[in-house]
C-alpha cells in the first residue's frame, strides 16, 4: 500500500471523529474563506497535491517555472530593495525627504508625482488648481527635476517613478539630469511604471487613447533596449487593480493579461521578445490574508514563465522571470485606531517577503488620514528591517514551499487566473476587454461584495466594525503648504521667460511631425526636455496629434 493510500484510509476515521466533535463543539463559522472570499478547507494534506510533479510545477529557485523565486539564493544573496514611495510639495521639499530616507537606510528611491504632472498638465493649468504638490511632487520641467535630484548621484541609486501616460517625458528628464551630472544613460538604474492599461481600469491617470499609448510604450521599450539597458521599462501593475477591489486571482489575471498585451504590441512592432522581455517588471499588492498572498506571488511567477516561454517563444530565461515590486495594501488601512495599521502592514510585508518580492514599500499607519509624517514613514521602514534582520524569514529560500495549504492555494490561484486569462483572450485581449468594460465590471463586483460583507459583519475589520472605541481627533497630520501651488506657478512663468524660446519651438515642431509619422518618439522628447520645454507643452503637442481618451462610465 502506498503512503497516499494509507493517508486516504486514515482520513476516513479522522473525518468521522471531526464530525463527532463538531456536533458537540461547533466550529466558529459554518464556512471559512480567504481574504478574497474563496473557501478554505479544514485540513490540507498530500492528497490535495496529488497529480502534481515537484520539478515541473514547483521546481528549484532560479529555475523554470520560478515558483520558488527568480534567484537561486534569494535573500541569502541580497535582501530585497527597501523602497519607500515618497514625494510631495515641490522639488526642494521632496529632495529633502529623499535624503532623509537614504540616511535612514532606504536602498532605492520611489518618486510620487502630483496629479497634474501625472496627467501632463503644467502647474499653471486651470485643472491643476488645488492639486499642485498634493499627492506627490510637482514637476513642470527639467529645471524642477534638477532640483529634485540635487546631491543624489544617479549612478549610485536606483529610482522608481510612478508615472504612466507621460512616462516618456519624465524618463527623458531623468536622462537629461544624469547627463548634467556626467552620468551616461547606460549607467542608470530604475523603473518607470509606464503601465497605461491599468490606468484605464483602476487608477485613472490616462491621457491618450489606447493605440497611441501602446505606441509610446513600445517606443520606450525599443529606445531603452539600446540606450538605457539597465532600466526597467515598465512595471505592469496589479497593485491598483487590487486596491480598486479585485480578488487575489483577478489581480494576477488582469495584470498578466495587460502584460500579454504589452508584449504582443512590442512583438507586432517588430521587436525581439528577448530584447525587451528581461526588462519587464511587475508590481503587486500585499493584502491581509498571509497565505493567500504568498500563494498569489508564487502562482504569478509560474504563470508568467509559461506565457513568455510557450506563448511568445522567449528563449532567454531572463525573459521568463517575473520580477516584482510589492506595496502593502493601502485600502486595508483604517482611519479608526490608526496605530493598528502598523500591525497590518507588518503581516502584509511578511507575505511579500515570503512570496519572494524584489522590492517593497511598506505603508505608513496614517495613510487613511493624510500623507504620512516622517515619524510614520520611519516605522514603516523599520518594519521591513525587522522582517529582514530579526524574523528569520530571509534566511532560507521560499520557506513556505511544501506547505500543503500554500501549495494548494498556489494551484487554485493559478487555475482561477488561467480561467480569467482565457476569458480575456476570448474577448480579444486586454485592450478590447477594457474597452468593453469587462475588467472594470469584474473588479467593481468584487469591491461591492467585499463592502457588503464588512457592513453585514460577515467580515471583521478590527477597530472598524468590531472592537471600536471612541477616539479623539487625530493630531499631527502632514499638511502640504497651500502656497506651493502659487510658488510653482511663479517658477514656471519665470522659466518660460528665461529659456531659449526658439529652441523650444523648434523641438516641439520636430516632436509633432515625429508623432504624426511612425518614428520612435523618445529622441525628439529628449531634445524637447533638454531645451526646457515643459511637461504640459510636450503633452499638448501629443494631445493635438493623438487626441484624448474618453472613458465609458459605469458602476
Amino acid at each position, binding site marked *: 500500500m502506498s503512503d497516499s493510500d494509507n493517508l486516504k484510509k486514515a482520513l476516513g476515521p479522522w473525518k468521522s471523529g471531526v464530525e463527532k466533535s463538531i456536533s458537540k463543539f461547533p466550529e466558529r463559522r459554518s464556512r471559512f474563506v480567504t481574504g478574497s472570499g474563496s473557501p478554505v478547507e479544514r485540513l490540507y494534506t498530500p492528497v490535495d497535491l496529488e497529480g502534481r510533479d515537484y520539478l515541473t510545477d514547483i521546481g528549484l529557485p532560479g529555475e523554470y517555472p520560478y515558483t520558488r523565486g527568480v534567484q537561486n539564493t534569494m535573500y541569502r544573496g541580497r535582501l530585497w530593495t527597501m523602497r519607500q514611495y515618497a514625494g510631495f510639495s515641490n522639488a526642494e521639499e521632496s529632495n529633502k525627504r529623499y535624503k532623509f530616507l537614504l540616511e535612514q537606510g532606504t536602498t532605492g528611491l520611489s518618486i510620487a508625482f502630483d496629479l497634474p504632472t501625472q*496627467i501632463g498638465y503644467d502647474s499653471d493649468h486651470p485643472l491643476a488648481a488645488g492639486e499642485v504638490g498634493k499627492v506627490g511632487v510637482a514637476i513642470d520641467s527639467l529645471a524642477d527635476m534638477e532640483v529634485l535630484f540635487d546631491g543624489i548621484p544617479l549612478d549610485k541609486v536606483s529610482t522608481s517613478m510612478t508615472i504612466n501616460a507621460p512616462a516618456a517625458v519624465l524618463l527623458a528628464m531623468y536622462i537629461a539630469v544624469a547627463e548634467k551630472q556626467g552620468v551616461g544613460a547606460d549607467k542608470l538604474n530604475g523603473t518607470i511604471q509606464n503601465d497605461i492599461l491599468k490606468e484605464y481600469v483602476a487608477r485613472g491617470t490616462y491621457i491618450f487613447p489606447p493605440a497611441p499609448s501602446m505606441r509610446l510604450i513600445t517606443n520606450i521599450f525599443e529606445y531603452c533596449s539600446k540606450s538605457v539597458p539597465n532600466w526597467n521599462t515598465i512595471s505592469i501593475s496589479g497593485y491598483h487593480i487590487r486596491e480598486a477591489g479585485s480578488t487575489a486571482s483577478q489581480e494576477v489575471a488582469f495584470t498578466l493579461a495587460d502584460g500579454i498585451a504589452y508584449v504582443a504590441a512590442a512583438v507586432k512592432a517588430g521587436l525581439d521578445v528577448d530584447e525587451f522581455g528581461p526588462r519587464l517588471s511587475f508590481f503587486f499588492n500585499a493584502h491581509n490574508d498571509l497565505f493567500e498572498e504568498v500563494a498569489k506571488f508564487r502562482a504569478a511567477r509560474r504563470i508568467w514563465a509559461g506565457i513568455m516561454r510557450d506563448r511568445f517563444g522567449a528563449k532567454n530565461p531572463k525573459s521568463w522571470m517575473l520580477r516584482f515590486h510589492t506595496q502593502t495594501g493601502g485600502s486595508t488601512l483604517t482611519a479608526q485606531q490608526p496605530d493598528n495599521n502598523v500591525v497590518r502592514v507588518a503581516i502584509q510585508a511578511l507575505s511579500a517577503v515570503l512570496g519572494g518580492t524584489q522590492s517593497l514599500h511598506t505603508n505608513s499607519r496614517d495613510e487613511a*488620514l493624510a500623507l504620512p509624517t516622517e515619524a510614520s514613514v520611519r516605522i514603516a521602514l523599520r518594519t521591513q528591517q525587522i522582517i529582514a534582520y530579526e524574523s528569520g524569514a530571509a534566511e532560507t529560500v521560499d520557506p513556505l514551499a511544501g506547505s500543503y495549504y500554500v501549495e494548494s492555494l498556489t494551484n487554485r490561484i493559478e487555475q482561477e487566473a488561467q480561467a480569467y486569462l482565457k476569458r480575456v483572450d476570448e474577448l480579444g485581449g486586454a485592450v478590447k476587454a477594457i474597452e468593453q468594460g469587462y475588467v472594470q465590471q469584474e473588479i467593481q463586483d468584487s*469591491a461591492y461584495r467585499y463592502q457588503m460583507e464588512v457592513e453585514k459583519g460577515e467580515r471583521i475589520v478590527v477597530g*472598524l466594525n468590531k472592537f471600536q472605541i471612541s477616539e479623539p481627533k487625530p493630531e499631527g497630520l502632514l499638511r502640504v503648504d497651500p502656497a506651493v501651488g502659487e510658488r510653482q506657478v511663479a517658477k514656471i512663468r519665470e522659466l518660460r521667460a528665461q529659456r531659449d524660446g526658439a529652441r523650444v519651438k523648434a523641438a516641439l515642431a520636430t516632436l509633432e511631425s515625429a508623432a504624426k509619422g511612425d518614428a520612435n518618439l523618445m529622441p525628439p522628447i529628449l531634445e524637447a526636455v533638454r531645451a526646457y520645454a515643459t511637461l504640459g507643452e510636450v503633452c499638448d503637442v501629443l494631445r493635438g496629434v493623438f487626441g484624448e481618451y474618453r472613458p465609458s462610465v459605469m458602476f
Partner: protein
Amino acid sequence: MERKIRVLVAKPGLDGHDRGAKVIARALRDDGMEVIYTGLRQTPEQIVQAAIQEDADVIALSILSGAHNHLFPRVTELLAAKGVSDVLVIGGGVIPEDDYEFLKSRGVAAVFGPGTPTKSTIDFIRTNLKRS
C-alpha cells in the same frame, strides 16, 4: 408613485480613485435611489451643470487627492450663483477631520470619512433631503 431621490455622484479634481464613489453609487441605487455617476476629472462647473440638467436632489462628491478645500466650496458657490438652494451637497474620501468644519461652513452638509458604512450615508440623505 413617489418620485425617486435623484443623486449625482461626482469626482471633482484629478484623482482616479473611484472605488468608493462606485460603491456608494451602487449602494444608493440598491436602496432605491436614482443615481448618476459623472466619472473622473469633473470640474465644479461640469458637476453643477450636470446636477441641474439631471434635476439632482443630492450631489455626493468624492475626492482623495487633498484638493477638497479648493474644489468642494467651488461647487456650493456655483450652485448659489445659479440660484440653486435646495440641493443637498455631501462629501467623502480621504479628508482630514480638521477640514470638516470649514467644509460645513461652505455648505457641504456632511463629510463621510474612510470606513463609513454606506447605510450611514443613505440614512443621512433620507433624513436631510432639502426637497420633499
